[in-house]
């Protein structure tokens, strides 16, 4: 089926998310939609899928104009979507998830689960998926959940399939398998729109590439284009992918973690017997596919995980059983993975957020009273020092852009006397300008003699910052390797394969 988008425009208030976008996907073609986070790719696909109504423009399938009032219409017209955040109901079985919305029923409205199971098996066999129709989705690994999403779309005879950032949660191996599936689908005549910001994947699988930036189509490219060409199209300038940093000036061991195990509420060892050391003036990057224990590891370092065993010591002080308060007071700075959830109070002003983790005692509190003058003075200094773009220090943090929000977090954490900085996904959802700024500040922190732990799922970021790289898989350390370790090796390690030598870097 041929898909055509003509002049799609979608505005949210004063923000134009899609600005007259044109896109044509021929039948049986894999068309990549390439763009940075926030470029407007997902908005465009949500318009296509009927989740949003376009302010202007039209969608055509096989040259016929379509009017989608909701996803139901889009699906009926043959459009399927594999969402970035899976649209599966965790407490339902695979068969229930697949049948939801187009249930076949027996007499009296009773669900016909048998036919749904048969459908799942049939599609699953056709593509070699090996999915049990009666498994609860919650119990399935993410890779399999994604296949359930694909089955869901195919069970409705989708002939245009949209994959929205499908590889974010996959290991490199699972990613390769997904590429295979896409080619298989293409063979069978399905048109595919593949949304991503990862250049390598694009070059591997795409027939055609459209690049979007700031809500506009900025160009088309062929898969033979080089990484640098694609990247410059994507971000609007030549990208310097590495941060300038000098050789580390290593001091003594500062953070010593030994035999750390974190147990989640249902008893899984999400971090399993992890030991490592970070020296003063060193950046240790923790790499790995999302969900392999990195989040829990950083939370354990901050005293946010209730069930841990093992030892965490900073400059010889044991902190494994300390409260977050004591750990912060001991000089640990923390940039959490999800700043909106864990790092900032959206309804608070910038000023208030800047005192968030110093709500007791000096310098902002005396005798239970907030020292407003001192606090405002501090806020003004930090807003200017960290180049936070805002109407003023009394703006609510919720109103700032992602990059500026992250600068507020960083300003707060770096303005304390640190003995350790833990930064989880420090540049996720942050514009390119801010990324550079944030990376620079992290390297400066290292150079001032503070040990730094950076957790990132982006290999680019790991490569840019790391003095050493620690790869995690299923809660365990696969290996700790030098900062210049080749990508291919890291990729295999992220899939759990242990390097035979060179691990003792």
């Amino acid at each position, binding site marked *: 089926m041929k898909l055509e988008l003509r002049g799609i425009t979608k505005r949210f208030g004063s923000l134009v998310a899609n600005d007259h976008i044109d896109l044509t996907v021929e039948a049986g073609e894999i068309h990549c939609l390439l763009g940075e986070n926030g470029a407007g790719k997902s908005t465009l696909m949500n318009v296509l899928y009927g989740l949003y109504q376009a302010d202007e423009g039209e969608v055509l399938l096989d040259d016929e104009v379509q009017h989608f009032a909701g996803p139901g219409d889009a699906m009926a017209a043959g459009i399927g979507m594999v969402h970035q955040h899976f649209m599966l109901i965790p407490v339902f079985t695979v068969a229930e998830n697949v049948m939801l919305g187009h249930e076949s029923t027996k007499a009296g409205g009773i669900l016909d689960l048998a036919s749904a199971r048969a459908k799942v098996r049939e599609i699953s066999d056709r593509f070699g998926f090996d999915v049990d129709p009666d498994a609860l989705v919650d119990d399935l690994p993410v890779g399999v959940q994604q296949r359930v999403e694909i089955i869901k779309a195919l069970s409705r005879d989708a002939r245009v399939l949209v994959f929205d950032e499908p590889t974010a949660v996959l290991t490199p191996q699972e990613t390769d398998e997904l590429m295979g599936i896409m080619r298989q689908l293409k063979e069978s005549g399905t048109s595919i729109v593949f949304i991503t910001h990862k250049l390598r994947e694009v070059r591997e699988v795409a027939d055609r590439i459209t690049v979007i930036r700031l809500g506009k189509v900025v160009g088309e490219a062929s898969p033979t284009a080089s990484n640098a060409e694609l990247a410059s199209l994507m971000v609007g300038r030549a990208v310097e992918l590495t941060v300038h940093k000098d050789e580390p000036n290593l001091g003594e061991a500062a953070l010593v973690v030994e035999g750390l195990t974190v*147990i989640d509420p249902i008893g899984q060892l999400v971090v399993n017997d992890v030991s490592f050391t970070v020296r003063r003036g060193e950046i240790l990057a923790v790499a790995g596919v999302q969900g392999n224990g990195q989040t829990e590891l950083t939370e354990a370092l901050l005293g946010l995980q209730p069930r841990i065993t093992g030892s965490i010591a900073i400059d010889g002080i044991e902190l494994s059983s300390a409260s977050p308060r004591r750990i912060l007071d001991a000089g640990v700075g923390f940039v959490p993975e999800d700043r909106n959830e864990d790092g900032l109070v959206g309804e608070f002003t910038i000023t208030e957020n800047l005192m968030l983790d110093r709500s007791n005692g000096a310098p902002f509190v005396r005798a239970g009273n907030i020292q407003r003058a001192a606090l405002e003075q501090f806020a003004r200094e930090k807003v200017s020092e960290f180049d936070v773009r805002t109407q003023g220090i009394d703006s609510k943090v919720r109103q700032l852009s992602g990059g500026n929000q992250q600068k507020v977090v960083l300003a707060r954490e770096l303005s304390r006397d640190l003995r350790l900085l833990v930064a989880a996904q420090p540049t996720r959802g942050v514009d390119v300008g801010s990324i550079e700024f944030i990376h620079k500040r992290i390297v400066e922190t290292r150079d001032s003699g503070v040990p730094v732990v950076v957790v990132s799922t982006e290999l680019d970021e790991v490569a840019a910052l790391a003095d050493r790289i620690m790869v995690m898989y299923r809660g365990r350390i696969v290996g700790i*390797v030098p900062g210049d370790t080749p990508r291919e090796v890291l990729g295999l390690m992220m899939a759990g394969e242990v390097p035979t*030598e*060179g691990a003792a870097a």
Partner: protein
Amino acid sequence: MSTTVQQTPASDVPALATTVVTSWKAPIAFAAFTLIALLLAVFAPREGETGFRLSEAKDVIQITTITTPAMPTLWVVIVLLALATAYSVFIVASKRRVPLWLIVVFAVLFMVGFLTWAAAGATIPVVGLLFGSLSLAVPLIFGSLSGVLSERVGVINIAIEGQLLAGAFTAAVVASITGQPIAGLFAAMVAGMLVSFVLAAFSIKYFVDQVIVGVVLNVLVLGLTSFFYSQVLVPNAAQLNTPPRFDRLPIPVLSEIPIIGPVLFRQTLVVYLMYVAVALVYIGLFHTKWGLRLRAVGEHPQAADTVGIKVNRTRFWNVALAGAIAGLGGTFFTIGSGIAFNKEMTAGAGFIALAAVIFGQWDPIKATFAALLFGFASNLQNTLAVIGSPVPSEFMLMLPYVVTIFAVAGLVGKVRGPAAAGKPYIKS
């Protein structure tokens, strides 16, 4: 730096290692209740025998009354309770979870011991006790079904109390005017549905916090019914507030089964409707298209939306249905019992129903049992008051609420409701 990698296939890696998270809540609670029983036996011993009368005079099949000496029975029960406690300690110490059956056995044992002690020197009419329990549970069961439906579709329903009250009021007025209790029944459903419309409109369309709307709606319905009661019903009581009542309809054969028959099958239409409602909600929720969509909307509205289910419309109509069911439950207070409407006559039944929803973990069957438990506690107080109980009636009346506090505090394990309950679904 040369780094080679062992080529082991990734799929061979086993799932995450696990360990068992143990909880000492159950053993501690068991020990506490065993201690209570022990304290009763030591410091408040009661002499005499306790009778349990199992059939009524008019029954076809008569069963002899069981009589048992109070104190020896209590001591036997205490020993059993202590054993159960020890077993639970053993289970937890060996890193396993206390099974549900042990909790149920423990509860039944404790209740037997307590009843024997409390009714020493008298006879407990078991059939009457259970019959009354069921009757008192009727509005609670309807209310909790309403809560289950509403919360399963993603809207917290604190307004059950208001729906019951609106149902009771409307049923009384319409049945009085028409002289037909059945007309009152339908009117009550409409009234409950109207309350739900407000809940749905404010929480779904205007995104007002659902708990707040619910609380305010209760006040609104209380104010409205009380106002119209004083202003309209009192001056015209004969025409507007003398509702006829539903007759008892014994079901042939079934009503003659010992114990069960008189309790379950000599009831009014409202009670039989309740049986049907429980069954329909259970089957509907878990085995039909309607239920699948309803639960999908309550668990993950966005996912439901992406497969073409209209989230807000589904919520709206199911909340309305929930209101109709609660309104039906409200009829128990007036036409179900042949009593004239009075101000505030639901007296917190809606909140107990809400407790039953949570206690029953959002499952219609479990919630029904929880409601029955609460009905039992209330009626136990009535029964004990008649035979002269050593426990002040207020403490018996308190029991459902205390039990609920224990329940939500985690005695029965972590209670997990529908994931999206309470959250408005806001597109873009």
